[in-house]
């Protein structure tokens, strides 16, 4: 479904990605592992059109993404939950979610989709009128994921969804991912918490300094010394 071939790119004169190729099949969960500054977030940003300079080929269900403006990409069915959540702080939970439906293929569906999200995160239903900025990190993460789900995506990019969250909250985010995947939405996950990521994902890629160094089944990666090395350097 998503096919990235020979992707390089970066900011200004500096390349942070070098010849990266990955793919995601429909309905599958794939994780990208690697230490900080390995280029994981940049890869995500390249897919959703936010990386200023990109070369290589990115196609999504046959459409060439590099020809699209960043704001047109969500409409094609790719939602991106950015690192740091980026909720609209001064809007209520419900308004945040509605913004997510801005690009949906059928806006008339927005109310119905709201129910899907509330089903996913009952907590958001309870807090629907609360300003998103006043919520806890975990709740904000739910808002961010819920907002992404509002656009009725077929692929969702999640960048560090457990960053800075307490363990118990990480657990519920983890759980939600399973339920989202069960709805038929493919997930591309970037996660510092490698153990968690590999327990959710079917396959994984390992990036080191912007280059792909390892890929394979989650189970195989879990025992691969290369993963530990990429993180701890030992």
């Amino acid at each position, binding site marked *: 479904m998503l096919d990235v071939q020979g992707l390089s790119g970066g900011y200004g004169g500096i390349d942070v990605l070098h010849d990266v190729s990955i793919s995601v099949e429909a309905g599958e969960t794939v994780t990208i592992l690697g230490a900080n500054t390995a280029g994981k977030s940049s890869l995500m940003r390249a897919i*959703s*059109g*936010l990386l200023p300079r990109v070369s290589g080929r990115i196609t999504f269900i046959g459409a060439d993404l590099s020809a699209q*403006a*960043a*704001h*047109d*990409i*969500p*409409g094609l069915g790719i*939602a*991106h939950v*950015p690192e740091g959540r*980026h*909720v*609209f*702080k*001064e*809007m209520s939970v419900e*308004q945040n979610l*509605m*913004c*997510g439906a*801005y*690009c949906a293929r059928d*806006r008339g569906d927005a109310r119905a989709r709201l129910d899907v999200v509330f089903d996913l995160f009952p907590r958001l239903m309870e807090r629907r009128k609360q300003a998103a900025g006043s919520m806890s990190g975990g709740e904000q993460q739910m808002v961010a994921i819920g*907002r*992404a789900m509002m*656009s009725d995506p077929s692929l969702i990019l999640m960048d560090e969804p457990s960053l800075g969250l307490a363990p118990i909250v990480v657990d519920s985010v983890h759980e939600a991912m399973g339920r989202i995947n069960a709805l038929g939405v493919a997930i591309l996950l970037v996660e510092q918490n490698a153990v968690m990521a590999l327990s959710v994902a079917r396959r994984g890629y390992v990036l080191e300094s912007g280059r792909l160094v390892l890929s394979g089944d989650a189970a195989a990666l879990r025992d691969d010394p290369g993963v530990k090395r990429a993180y701890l350097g030992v």
Partner: protein
Amino acid sequence: MAYLQAILDGILLGGVYGVISTGLSLVFGVLGVVNFAQAEFLMVGMYVAYFAWAYLGLDPLIAAPLAFGVVFVLGFYSQKLLVGRVMSAPPAAQIFLTVGLMITLENGALVLFGSDFRSVNVPYQIQGFRLGELFVSAPYLYAFLWAVVITGALWLFMARSWTGRAIRAVAQDPMAATLAGINTARTYNIAFGLGVGLTAFGGAVILPYITVSPTAGVQFAVLMFTVVVLGGLGSTTGALVGGIVVGIIQSLSGLLFPIQLQNLVLFIIFILVLALRPQGLLKGV
């Protein structure tokens, strides 16, 4: 009683200040650009309403939506063709661009319309209502009511419409807005048009009690900035409250100080607020 009357006048005046300043606040809140030319768009709105009255016989209150429309288009393209091109430039470039726009609009009006002071003639111009011992001037009251209506309309638009939501989303987090599929550049154009359009609307409704000339905007410039800074740059509800506060201050200081010093009071408030609470007095209250 004189004080009560002054407060009443101040509220009526302040409601209009609120609408005028809401436009400025909207532009800043969404684009992060202080539009030094905002007051000149007010002047343009006044001229639109004036000519609608002179040639079409329209009451300025009826022509106000027309003023909004014309200035919206003007603003949309000002943003698209001019301001939008320096959005990522340092503030100095933005400041000078809007200052250039200010000079251009003011003198463009001077070239086109001459320096004459023009005023409209409407039947309710000198009418009023008695409220016990208080006097309510009809044109002030109508302008105030219109201001309240348009503010309500703006509020509904921002809360309910897709475009309104997009504007707020872009204002709060452009990156997340892009990821939600919102075209930020287009949203900026709309927000700028909306902001200057609202200010122009305010210019039209005050035409029954004020004269228009190419320099008509200037007297509102510092006033607008004071209102907006008082209410918190970027906060539209703050601008409305700030407008009424400034209206009352201005009206009361008219009782206490000679006319020339009225503005001084405003300026001093302005500098003090900037210095002590640049995020605005009303924000977070």
